[in-house]
């Protein structure tokens, strides 16, 4: 493809920022244009055109995450109306496999970033806490795929999960102590000891290109 020669300054910059290879960027750019209908930015409506996404029970949350300023690293809260290609790449880079040759610290950082993405998805009001309401909301959506499980059950599952989280994070609580919600630190605690390396990766390209960038 000769991409190395034709790699423009812009692409090189993106490579540095997001860690994607230029081939991957090219491919993602193609997809981006396809989604946006050759516009420079993507709006929420564009995501509705993806037919495969329709079956996803937490579709709205995921789409929201694409426009979340926290994930875009732009602002501590709020939603963007539209995202450009760079933002798109930023979001996608959350799902990039962790390189094998990075140090322990880098690995930890990557892990945290990935978890933060998930955390932001739960924490819809950007207050740094997943409150019970927010948690219930997510669980309800998660279970919405099964029409036979009622909201009540979803709620009680969320409650159970919250209690579990509280017991993991705070331990034995005093009677007058109140657990307000899962903070990000608590969130990390919950994830302790669980490999997410295998869990939050997407293969972005077909095999040849992966082989190329090695």
């Amino acid at each position, binding site marked *: 493809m000769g991409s190395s020669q034709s790699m423009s300054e812009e692409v090189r910059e993106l490579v540095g920022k997001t860690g994607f290879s230029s081939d991957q960027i090219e491919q993602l750019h193609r997809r981006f244009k*396809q989604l946006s209908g050759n516009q420079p930015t993507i709006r929420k409506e564009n*995501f509705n055109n*993806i037919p*495969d*996404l329709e*079956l*996803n*029970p*937490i*579709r709205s949350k*995921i789409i929201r*995450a*694409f426009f979340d300023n926290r994930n875009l690293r732009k602002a501590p809260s709020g939603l963007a109306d539209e995202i450009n290609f760079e933002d798109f790449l930023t979001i*996608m880079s959350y*799902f990039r*496999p962790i390189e094998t040759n990075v140090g322990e610290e880098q690995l930890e950082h990557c892990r945290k970033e990935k978890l933060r993405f*998930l955390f932001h998805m739960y924490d819809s009001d950007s207050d740094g806490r997943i409150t*019970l*309401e927010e948690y219930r909301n*997510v*669980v309800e959506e*998660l*279970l919405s*795929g*099964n029409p*036979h*499980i009622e909201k*009540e*059950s979803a*709620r*009680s599952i969320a*409650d*159970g999960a*919250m*209690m*579990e989280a*509280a*017991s*993991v994070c705070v*331990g*034995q*609580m*005093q*009677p*007058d102590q*109140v*657990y*307000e919600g899962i903070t990000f630190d608590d969130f990390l605690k*919950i994830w302790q*000891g*669980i490999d*997410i*390396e*295998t*869990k939050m*990766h997407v*293969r*972005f390209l077909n*095999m040849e290109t*992966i082989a190329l960038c090695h």
Partner: protein
Amino acid sequence: MSQRKDWRKREKKEHPGLLYMLPATLPLLGMPLPGAGAGVADGAAGESVLPPAGLALLRWQWHEVEAPYLVAVWILVASLAKIVFHLSRKVTSVVPESCLLILLGLVLGGIVLAVAKKAEYQLEPGTFFLFLLPPIVLDSGYFMPSRLFFDNLGAILTYAVVGTLWNSFTTGAALWGIQQAGLMAPTVQAGLLDFLLFGSLISAVDPVAVLAVFEEVHVNETLFIIVFGESLLNDAVTVVLYKVYNSFVEMGSVNVQAIDYVKGVASLFVVSLGGAAVGLVFAFLLALTTRFTKRVRIIEPLLVFLLAYAAYLTAEMASLSAILAVTMCGVGCKKYVEANISHKSRTAVKYTMKTLASCAETVIFMLLGISAVDSSKWAWDTGLVLGTLFFILLFRALGVVLQTWVLNQFRLVPLDKIDQVVMSYGGLRGAVAFALVILLDKTKVPAKDYFVATTIVVVFFTVIVQGLTIKPLVKWLKVKRSDHHKPTLNQELHEHTFDHILAAVEDVVGHHGYHYWRDRWEQFDKKYLSQLLMRRSAYRIRDQIWDVYYKLNIRDAISFVDQGGHVLSSAGLTLPSMPSRNSAAETSVTNLLRESGSGACLDLQVIDTVRSGKDREDAIMHHLLSGGLYKPRRRYKASCSRHFISEDAQARQDKEVFQQNMKRRLESFKSTKHNVCLSKSKLRLRKAGRKVIPSPCFCSRPAAVILAVESEEESDSSETEKEDDEGIVFVARATNEVFREHKVPGSMEVCPSPCIIPPSPTCAEKELPWKSGQGDLAVYVSSETTKIVPVDMQTGWNQSISSLESLASPPCAQAALRAAHPLACPLPRGDELRDPLAALVTPSPESHAGFTFTPSLAKAGRSRSESSADAPEQQELQPLMAPEDRGCLSPGTANARWLIQFNRAGRL
């Protein structure tokens, strides 16, 4: 070493008894089944020749029972040996069981040889393939972590297919090479084809051996599934190669034509895909059959085994890969079968499967050891043996490294060097190779004896030497171990979210990758397969998150009961609940009461439609009573049925205790939410002598947990109950129904209805939601019954009794989260409360004060500990109450929220 000697001594000590048996048992092992037939024939012949000399008092009929007897004895010996091994933890922690069993086999074989002067017992290929192997494979297939398996399917298939092909070719060719180089004795008459044939059987990693060793070495799950999956799936390749070469050898290399090679390659696909297809078809049948076993629960476990075995035999019959068939059958059916069959059947399947597999494994290793003693089949050639050992190790390592290098180009999580070492070293050979080599035809393969000897050495070497050293190696290399943490609800939820996110991202990127297809498959499964293969009741609640939640609840509940119901685990969940299946309407409290026909019903009060704060106190008092009282042990009719298992009284008793405990937990959860502490240890009330039936009860709070614990047994046993002690039911009724006539024993009769005494309105009462204009919102209770007890989910649903205690939402998040500490407070108070409670329960004049909800009690707010007149305790409660009051004192917002919950509860 010394340990092993020590063990041997012990073994020998154990033997004398067996020695007598052995000479007699000798005829067995060759052909257990034909042997049986012959024995019967002999007996018959003997009888016809000699006229019976009168009625024999005792007849010795060894021949008639010989074959099954011997089989039983062998399994018994193996099991006893297992027990002996595990007496010493030190030995088993160092030496894998398979090694010990092989050694035991060697010893036994030696004894047999010494006694009978000829080796008799052998691992017969027929027995092995038809009886011993299937249980092991079924066990591993059924309990295969399917998610992990399919996540790594690419790697597993590569190693299984490419790896096995590579191993067999290179090993065969290299052996032929050293023969050509003259390193083997000239008596080893074998051509290239013979060596390739030998290579094909010796190169396959053996599932039995791998499982036996790797189960004791806890490597991380990815590594385990790759090695283990490979050992299962390579069967197809082995079978094909073996058969192809074997027929080539039999045809003679001259007669092999090009078309035969093509056929050979084609047969690889036929055998593997055919085997898998057979397995899947049977999995489908199995799942479908279990869908209809609702009324014949008792045969459910049997069906699983029969159909899986049928899959194995069918594949074997069609000369397809039988191992693959059973594996696929196990993997494929599990999800649906588990959903369909009852809880008990699940346990039965699990244990039977494990038992059979473990038996088979034990017998296999023991027979392997015994077979090795038979020197008549041996022909030793040092060059061949050493060459084979060297090459299988070398080429295994080489193959793993090469394949891993290729695979790592595609894997998201590459396999590192340490993994590769373990994988190379974990390539154990076992009984499959041995059985295959025994099956060779000596007239066609003149070097068979040499191959047998070599195979035995290889198997022994890999199982004993590698099995012994792999544990230290894993430790030394610091291989990532599997960390056995219990699944948590959060984790499950997050993982689901991840799955969805990943699928979504793949959709967005437009790349149809693994997650995309997995997502598609799940959709398909949900839409069609599950609908077809699962019972409707099972299908409805089928959800992984729900499953985890359910399991956690059960586990928690069990641990709670195990701890005697006094200590609550803080890690656990405290809200066991079930999805509500039935609307509450049919199962109102009173209906249930009528149905259950319990002897006496003491109506504590008839509550008017006007709700007042008093209700709450009353209800609390009611919970206190109903929660704290032990349900009497009832007598049950002895029942004996072949087709249905009835629980014995002990089990019921346990269940009752369990229910009691669960209920109290629920209450404690609820009450902490409501700032009321409940006594924990009221169970001891039983001693107080009163037998009162805790009944479905009535919750005065929309946000409360409904905690009736009424299960199907209640109604089942109503008749028996009547002849038994008359129970007393405390009911707070929501209706104005006519006071029913009851057979109230003794002084209970005069219990006045407490509503006569008008309670003074309390602060809390004023703040009650239904006081503020919503007075006649129909019901603020869901009087559903709850089945908290995981007796049998299935029956529970089907009988429409179990349902959700609607864990209604607390007023606000904070309040809900107080639930996280329902565990903290009430424990010490139980003892204090017990006495006053006992007083309450005893129908003595004094207790009337307790029953009649005096104004003072009402004033005490929700703290029914007033009844204990324990001032310090009440003070203790104060801080608890504060937040709630605060919450209620902001009527504007609070009420709105209340209202919502209110309605929801009403809808239920």
